[in-house]
């Protein structure tokens, strides 16, 4: 799979990450804000698993900084979370590749859960954030959105899964 250099171009990576950034801030009705999937982490995890030799912790960190500026979070909050899950995804990428879809979703549940945990830890360290159960709903929605992400991004790379 690594031999095919044509599938390792960075164009689709940049485009999809920008698209995920747009989806992360696109205005939605109030009820939907709590259940917005974490698009950027999902897309990042996909690319780390798909081309671990090109996309990794540094990419996660840079994309996280951009996301921080985009959402007005403390600089480094998303960078930390994304670098962390990029690392975990890198360590596990060989296993996740061969998982069936439902098991991949479970892995995503844990990864995005880590990301949300780091985010809320940073947020609560620097400012008052109301603690609600709904904060974690986005983790579940992200896990459910994972098959959609693999399908869409796989199509972008020429109908491959990874």
């Amino acid at each position, binding site marked *: 799979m690594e031999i095919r250099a044509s599938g390792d171009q960075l164009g689709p990576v940049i485009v999809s990450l*920008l698209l995920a*950034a*747009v*989806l*992360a*801030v*696109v*205005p939605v009705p*109030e009820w939907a*804000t*709590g259940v*917005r999937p974490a698009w950027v982490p999902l897309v990042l995890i996909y690319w780390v698993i798909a081309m671990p030799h090109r996309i990794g912790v540094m990419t996660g960190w840079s994309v996280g*900084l*951009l996301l*921080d*500026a*985009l*959402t*007005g*979070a*403390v*600089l480094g909050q998303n960078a930390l979370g994304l670098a962390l899950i990029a690392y975990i995804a890198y360590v596990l990428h060989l296993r996740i590749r061969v998982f069936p879809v439902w098991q991949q979703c479970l892995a995503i549940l844990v990864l995005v859960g880590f990301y949300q945990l780091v985010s809320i830890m940073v947020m609560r360290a*620097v*400012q*008052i*954030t*109301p603690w*609600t159960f*709904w*904060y974690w709903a986005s983790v579940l929605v992200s896990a459910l959105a994972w098959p959609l992400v693999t399908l869409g991004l796989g199509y972008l790379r020429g109908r491959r899964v990874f």
Partner: protein
Amino acid sequence: MNPVRFSLSVVTAPIHYVANIPQRLLSWSAEGMRSREDLEDENLRLQSEVLVLKRRVQKLASTVAENTRLKELMNASDLLDDQVLIAEIIGVDPDPYRHEAIIDKGARDNVYVGQAVLDAEGLMGQVIEVGLLSSRVLLISDISHGLPVHVNRNGVRAIAVGSGKLDLLNLIHVPDTADIARGDLLVSSGLGGRFPKGYPVGVVTKVEHDPGRPFALVEAKPMANLDRSRHVLLVFSEEGRRMLPLATGGEAASVPPPASAAAAAPESESPPGPAAPPAEEVTDGD
């Protein structure tokens, strides 16, 4: 001003613009496809509104003159009319627990940190971060936002802090004996030195006297349409400009203004009763 954020905002502003496109298309098509009757109705309504407003303006001229004369008599500084700049909201914070909006005016248009933001109905919030092309506005309903107000009817001072809900402000440290009633209009008092004074903030919706609490429970509903306005006004007030060197001096920029007002304003009206609750809800910011 944080230089890293400032330069990153050049990249993020286009993303906000792109994210705003669907909504813009939607409202554009809704504008373009309205029926003739709707437009006639609206025209009629606007015309009658203009008539009502014109009548008020007639009285306004004489009232302003009278007000100026009285102020001169009292040797008070004159109320200058503030300059405004119209901006459009191009994004809201995706985090449902933070009430922030992004507007399409930035340092290029001389927007400064701490600038007051209004809509047609009342005060909306203040600028907390300025990029080159866009800036970030903290709404008055954000949980970390506080704002010095006074009751328009009798001048009783209070601090309105956000509740994290778009339609609710809490008035803190209001003594049980304070003369605040349901339906009172709250206007900005300008005591914090950041907001210009005299702009409507909210209407008191609930006053509750609980003997078990040291202070009365007062709730208000913001006048501004915090979740609906698309066009907002940035106020360039003389007071705000004077705040400018202070506001750019570092962390002062991100701390909401009433930190000083919280200490200054209520002291004359709070009874020497039990210890006041800690004020961290007010002073904590960003």
